[in-house]
């Protein structure tokens, strides 16, 4: 399952890169940092990414989850820090 989620997240990052014309998002990998440090996304990009991932999870896995809500915002470590943390957070939500 984690492989599928990772693919969805990477595809969503590429889609945001195409929408926002950001070359640095067009070839993402699992080690990509999204926020902070060498992060490649600003707050507007992350909003688009969240929306895109939610849509693709629904289309591909037929699951409806909300990635950005009070719970996500109150996490000690941001689920949107990197591809890995985002995949982990999605996986956790799907297990519930």
């Amino acid at each position: 399952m984690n492989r599928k989620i990772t693919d969805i997240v990477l595809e969503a990052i590429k889609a945001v890169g195409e929408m926002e014309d950001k070359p640095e998002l067009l070839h993402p990998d699992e080690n990509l940092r999204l926020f902070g440090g060498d992060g490649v996304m600003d707050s507007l990009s992350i909003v688009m990414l969240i929306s895109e991932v939610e849509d693709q999870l629904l289309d591909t896995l037929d699951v409806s989850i909300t990635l950005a809500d009070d719970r996500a915002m109150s996490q000690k470590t941001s689920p949107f820090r990197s591809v890995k943390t985002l995949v982990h957070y999605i996986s956790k939500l799907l297990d519930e």
Partner: protein
Amino acid sequence: MLKPVEDLGLKTVEDLGLKTVEDSNLKIVEDSNLKTVEDSDLKTILLWRNQPEVRQFSFHSDKISWQEHCLWWQSAKTDPSKKWLMYYQQEQALGVVNFYDIKERAKAFWGFYFTDQIAGYEKLKLWFALEKAAIAYAFETLELVELNCEVFKANQAALVMHKRQGFQEVSHYEHEKGEVVVLSLRKD
């Protein structure tokens, strides 16, 4: 007589004595509120309003001068159809919320913008918190039953964020800067 902002030697938010989020390690928390804008907030608001990213999605995208800003405020602060509020967290001003076309205890439009001193994930968290606070203020303090907003279609992130709070598209119209989407949220 208000002096031009340049004469006051104020160029950045730091000049105003406000800390940046990175400097202060401020955490975006629920301890937040909205307070009516005071004359002393004007310089801060002008700095935020003139940010390129704010002007990009404003109906009037020209840079605003201090004189224009003061003239606008003289009119806005006594206009009963408008309400301007500063958004605070832990006593730090982080954004501006405005309600306009207020029909008492019925409906209004709203808009907002943020401090220039916050970015990345903290800005996303701030956005969530500010939007929730503004909606609560509209329905609980202003006792509105309908809250509306206008967003350029090109501002996809704002559309996504508004819809996440329950706003629904109700109409579209053309503006010289592009297509505008009107969204609405009802109290019930």
